[in-house]
């Protein structure tokens, strides 16, 4: 009886400690096998830190765009902007040390369309890609379903058969063929291969400094990429959010009829700190996302590699590498590609050939999930969120209903399709890009905002219809 009550009282602390111990022991075990697994463990522990911060601030980038339209609350949009500014500054410093792992995304219409589909999907799933991970860590099984749906829909998009080949412009196949790729990739078969080789490869990814032609001095280039591409737009957006969403309520609470400049600045500060948890999480996420690039970059220099695939080869693990002997290894915070690899790996085990395409076969490989470094970052986010949620007694198993399960899967599929078209999610294609001087991220944000707007409209219609049928507000 005595022990039962102790268990009841401290169950959450016990579970939380068990996760920390398990991750620590797992890390030591990996190092005891081969100390070069340190490279993989960097992803694990940074994932854990991201998870802690995401849960701490209930930091959901889906809410950032959705809540602006659904309920006119700028809390998360502000938190996201804080994170972008901090990440940009740290990333600028990291770039100056020469250890930046960043590579820009290519610029094209696909980003806008993909981001629109992605933004539409996140309204129904109740979380973006990283948001779903941290919510799964809080015990939300709807979010776990979302992760499932994203994984498999992406794998099917990139490896899908040739059913949709007829929809591609004639030029793509020609252009893809001209790339002279190995025959086993069959680049002229499969919609996504045609899209990648016939369209995306013809585009260029670049940073703002390169566009402006200022690259001879690294310091000026970093200043342009950090301040002109990230910090300045963030300040403009913060002022915009203040004027459109916050100022009215602020004036009412202040009880003044006209505001001085000082009042306005205090109002902006007020808006940024109105949710302390969110603001602090933004600061933390920004700083650690930048540090992550530095640590991975420094380790790459130490091991003299460009990609984790080389390290895996050296350690004797050659299964699942791409034909270039590479695996997916972004070197910074990324979510969706490793989830596609999980889905692809399972489908490969089921006997479907998943390596005959560019995405897995040439670029990212299909490593065993136990050797998938960025995959462990995603698991780290789940575990980090679980540690903190348990400590704060916020962990709770939430079971799906038929309705939420349907939305989770349908929305997750849309997110997967959108993320592949746009070459990333709100982390990989927006957060990590705008902060490193790549303007394509702002296009992603625009697409995601428009998609979110459309999603909110549809979702509100659905809710009205459902409520009118139930004829009461009891849910």
């Amino acid at each position, binding site marked *: 009886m005595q022990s039962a009550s102790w268990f009841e009282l401290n169950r959450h602390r016990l579970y939380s400690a068990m996760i920390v111990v398990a991750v620590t022991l797992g890390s030591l075990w990996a190092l005891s096998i081969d100390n070069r697994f340190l490279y993989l463990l960097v992803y694990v522990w940074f994932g854990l830190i991201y998870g802690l911060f995401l849960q701490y601030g209930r930091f959901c980038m889906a809410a950032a765009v959705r809540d602006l339209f659904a309920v006119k609350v700028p809390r998360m949009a502000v938190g996201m902007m804080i994170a972008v500014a901090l990440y940009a500054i740290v990333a600028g410093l990291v770039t100056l040390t020469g250890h930046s792992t960043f590579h820009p995304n290519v610029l094209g219409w696909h980003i806008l369309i993909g981001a629109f589909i992605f933004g539409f999907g996140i309204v129904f799933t109740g979380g973006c890609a990283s948001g779903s991970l941290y919510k799964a860590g809080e015990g939300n099984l709807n979010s776990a379903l979302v992760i499932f749906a994203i994984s498999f829909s992406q794998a099917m998009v990139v490896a899908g058969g040739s059913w949709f080949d007829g929809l591609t412009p004639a030029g793509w196949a020609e252009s893809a063929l001209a790339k002279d790729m190995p025959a086993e990739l069959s680049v002229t078969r499969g919609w996504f291969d045609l899209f990648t080789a016939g369209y995306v490869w013809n585009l260029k990814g670049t940073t703002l400094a390169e566009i402006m032609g200022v690259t001879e001095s690294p310091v000026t280039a970093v200043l342009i990429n950090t301040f002109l591409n990230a910090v300045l737009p963030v300040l403009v957006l913060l002022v915009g959010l203040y004027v459109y969403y916050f100022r009215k309520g602020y004036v009412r609470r202040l009880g003044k009829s006209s505001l001085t400049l000082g009042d306005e600045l205090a109002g902006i500060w007020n808006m940024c700190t109105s949710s302390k948890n969110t603001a602090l999480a933004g600061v933390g996420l920004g700083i650690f996302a930048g540090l992550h690039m530095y640590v991975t970059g420094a380790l790459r220099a130490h091991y003299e590699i460009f990609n984790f695939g080389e390290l895996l080869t050296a350690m004797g693990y050659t299964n699942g590498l791409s034909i270039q002997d590479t695996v997916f290894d972004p070197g910074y915070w990324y979510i969706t590609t490793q989830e596609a690899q999980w889905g692809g790996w399972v489908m490969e085990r089921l006997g479907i050939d998943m390596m005959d395409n560019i995405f897995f076969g040439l670029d990212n490989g299909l490593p065993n999930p136990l050797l998938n470094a960025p995959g462990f970052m995603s698991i780290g986010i789940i575990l980090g969120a679980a540690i903190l949620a348990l400590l704060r007694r916020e962990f709770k198993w939430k*079971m799906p209903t038929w309705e939420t399960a349907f939305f989770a899967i349908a929305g997750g599929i849309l997110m997967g399709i959108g993320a592949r078209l746009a070459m990333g999610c709100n982390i990989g294609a927006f957060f990590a890009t705008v902060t490193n001087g790549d303007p394509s991220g702002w296009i992603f944000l625009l697409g995601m905002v428009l998609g979110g707007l459309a999603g909110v409209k549809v979702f509100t219609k659905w*809710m009205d219809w459902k409520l009118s049928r139930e004829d009461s507000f009891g*849910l």
Partner: protein
Amino acid sequence: MLGEMGNLIRERCVNWLGYLFKRPREPRSLMAHEEILPGIGPVRVAYVIDCMGAMCPRPQLLTMKILAMVDAGEVIEVVTDNPAAVETFPSLADTLVCSHLLTIRESDCWRLYLRKEA
């Protein structure tokens, strides 16, 4: 201890199956009632919005709808187990011209009290 964990898991599974195949659990009384809020005193709660298990943005949207229906000065209560929604409510209150009186942490949910301003 392991036996206790096992019992817990079994109980959860049974609950969920009931939840999937029958009506969701009986909502708390949605009728108006008096309640004494710590630090604020007795308050007449005009509406209770039960958002247990609801994902964002449903709790926020339901609250907006109810707030549009009640009269100025009335207090509504929102019951939710969604941490992200709880974090949003103070900012939501500003937008919706109401004051966020208090958030009470229960063992399995939060109860938030909002008063519609004039």
